[in-house]
């Protein structure tokens, strides 16, 4: 389970809308409980560094990745995962997402069909390098 409260959700949707029709991308920070429940407390928006068509692809530069790790360390957070948008496509990971995916990370996909039709879903790799859906809740964690 991953907890994304309404403030974080708002930030993610804003980035996806601002970047539309290109894909947006960034990092999610927070805490992980012993039972595996994750709570996102902050995000870091980064540039989509993909050369060429950004409407179907995203890429994060190594420099931004290192910044994100340092940011997590500095705030004593865990780098929980990556978010990106799928403009005009469902919030389901593509084969391209799966091939490039890292273990452990939550992959939150923001589907933007239009300004009103937005859906967030989160995915995690299992041992067989296949994505399994992770439930998103907006429960306020105490």
């Amino acid at each position: 389970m991953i907890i994304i409260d309404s403030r974080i959700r708002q930030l993610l949707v804003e980035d996806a809308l601002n970047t539309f029709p290109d894909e947006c991308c960034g990092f999610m920070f927070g805490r992980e409980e012993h039972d595996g429940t994750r709570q996102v407390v902050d995000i870091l928006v980064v540039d989509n560094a993909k050369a060429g068509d950004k409407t179907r692809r995203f890429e994060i530069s190594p420099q931004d990745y290192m910044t994100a790790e340092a940011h997590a360390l500095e705030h004593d957070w865990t780098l929980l995962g990556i978010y990106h948008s799928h403009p005009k496509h469902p919030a389901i990971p593509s084969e391209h997402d799966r091939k490039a995916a890292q273990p452990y990370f939550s992959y939150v996909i923001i589907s933007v069909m239009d300004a009103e039709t937005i859906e967030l879903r989160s995915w995690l790799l299992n041992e067989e390098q296949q994505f399994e859906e992770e439930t998103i809740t907006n429960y306020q964690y105490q």
Partner: protein
Amino acid sequence: MATVIIPTPLRKFTNNTARLQVKPGTVQDTVRELTINFPDLKKHLLDEQGKIRSYVNIFIGNDDIRDLQQEHTAVQEGAVVSIVPAIAGGSGADPRSAAANAGGAAPVNGEDVVFTKEELARYNRHIIIPGFGMEAQQKLKKARVLVVGSGGLGSPVLLYLAAAGIGTIGIVDFDVVDDSNLQRQVLFGVDAVGQPKVEAAKKRLQALNPHIELKLYNTHLNSHNALDILKDYDVIADGTDNFPTRYLVNDASVLLGKPNVYASIFQFEGQVSVFNYRPAGGTLGPNYRDLYPTPPPPGLVPSCAEGGVLGVLPGIIGSLQALEVIKVITGVGETLSGRFYIFDALNFESRTFTIKPREDNPLNGKNPTITALIDYEQFCGMRAVEEKPLKEVTAKELYDWQVTGEPFQLIDVREPHEYAIVNIGGELIPLATVADHAGEIDRDRKVVVHCKVGGRSAKAIRELEEKFGYTNLYNLKGGILAYIDQIQPELTKY
């Protein structure tokens, strides 16, 4: 000791430790030490050959080891080594781009393609070839090919690719059909003269094959629009006639990871190769910059407009280019990737050279210096920034001088046979003999120098200015062709 920073996703293999201490040495030693202490890291860091995986970046401080000595880069006492996983993805609704991202891969999967009854009948002679068959024909229909230039080479390339049933063909050309094109550009007829080439091409190709889609770009391909135009295609076919565009097409193809099927022609000779292509399971082949890292000096190799070309040659070479496009798409046969083919029509001789990727290739060698498109006109010396601009006169201004009796001398630096076809009364001093005839060129009045389109006259002016210190020379902009177009359309164009 040196410090290794383990990225979050891999910490479950290092007992949740973010920072590990290692002995100084090289990056290779560091990776070995890590994988001995934490064997589960191995499959995430190294491939089957024991090389660092392509999607794992290793940084020392802020420097990517790919920009240093790769795995031999020294890890010194106190160094901070960061392991950085490549983070990428995307909706990827289109499987072609996913494969293309791997860099020049044979990019088309045609499994889901279906044909109408008419198409099956049309492509029957393809489908019955053993080893080609339905599967290859499906790939052709799924494929998107961009043909840059619809002239001499583009004509046979477009005709054969359209006939073969390539599903989507893009055509880039800014030019209009001229009567002098018809000697070799078999895509066009007399009725197309004066029309934009892309539109005339579309008409002809649609009449040939109504089952395909054509996309037109009636524009100059340049550094601003090239990536945007090329990105939607699986394969690029370069049939351009000039160096700036050739380097532009090459660089854009490499940056976008697309195979570039190349051909060029001059007088009696043609060349063909396949650049930036990765056959299934193979390694990425060389590109144009592995063959020619830098362009020849401007003016050394004339264009077809200035040097001429035997009309049938682009037909031969363009057909070979179309053949290689089809092989790249279908994966059938061995392409010319890594090989360079030259055909000498005069002696009927063919030669094939082996070409290899160069370590100093500025695009994708060991230390790439080009990561975005540059100014190719300047790169090819067409617009050298340090050279002061030539004084120019337009055809209309020259005509005004003639009418108003402004004193000037007119020099024609073309060849005698060109002069015989058409001239505008200039004194004939061919480019190669200009220095020897400097004594005949006035210094006390304006001197207008012209050739066919303005390239050779510019060279003549530079030479005279450098060697003899002339300051009164004017280049006729656009050469005699511009003069004919604007002032005396009744004269013969060639």
